[in-house]
């Protein structure tokens, strides 16, 4: 379609920055992406743990020692929180894809539920495991 004007159309402003105030919908959405990308850190540590376990007792002691140290625990704790949050965010996307819960009020309430739900699931996991 060569006759379409592609250069001079109004652009939709980016959701974060000076154009919009922070909203539950935009903030919970960007945090789904942030948590998803950040989970690569936990992914690396988990793969390291398995590789060390396959390698032998000495390698295992190093990897397991690091991951269960206070620093490793901290990373794993926030990764767990991020993992549950990201999963709830994914479930929200699956519901949206089915055409349900698309109105603003329900989306905002679901966003608040994701935050509360991920904290509760993290507390539950820490108690059980």
């Amino acid at each position, binding site marked *: 379609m060569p006759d379409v004007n592609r250069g001079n159309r109004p652009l939709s402003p980016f959701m974060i920055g000076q154009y919009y105030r922070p909203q539950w919908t935009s903030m919970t959405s960007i945090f789904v*992406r942030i948590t*998803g990308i950040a989970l690569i850190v936990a992914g690396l540590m988990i793969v390291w743990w*398995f590789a060390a376990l396959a390698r032998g007792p000495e390698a295992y002691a190093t990897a397991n020692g690091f991951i269960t140290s206070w620093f490793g625990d901290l990373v794993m704790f926030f990764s767990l929180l991020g993992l549950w949050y990201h*999963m709830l965010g994914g479930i929200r*996307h699956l519901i949206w894809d089915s055409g349900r819960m698309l109105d603003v009020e329900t989306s905002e309430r679901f966003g608040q539920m994701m935050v509360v739900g991920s904290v509760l699931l993290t507390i539950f996991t820490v108690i059980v*495991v």
Partner: protein
Amino acid sequence: MRYLTDRKRATGLGSAHSGAEHHWHMIVTSVLLTGLVPMFVFTFGLGLGMEYDQAAAYYSRPFPAIIGILTLLVGFVHFRSGVQSAIEDYTHGFLRKALIIAAIGLCYTLAAIGIFAIVRIAL
């Protein structure tokens, strides 16, 4: 003049003949992960911190080992596609291509190392 319905165009039959596969791929992997992730969290959480002999014995059992393999496989494939979307949103040109290839390479490498390790522990 458009002879295609909106739905046909959206499901991949527009002029590009493709387009919705990435989204469908994310749906499939995320549905699988909603089942796998809770099972992995509670099996891996048990194994983490065990003594070497205990941990090796635990991951020799079929259930934790198979859940671990599936979660690493589906999880890294899901990450691969998710991070590709993020890269496509924020970068352009050569950098975009380089980052996408690097991310895909990293994901397959980590999945291979993790799965190889679990198979080795279990067998």
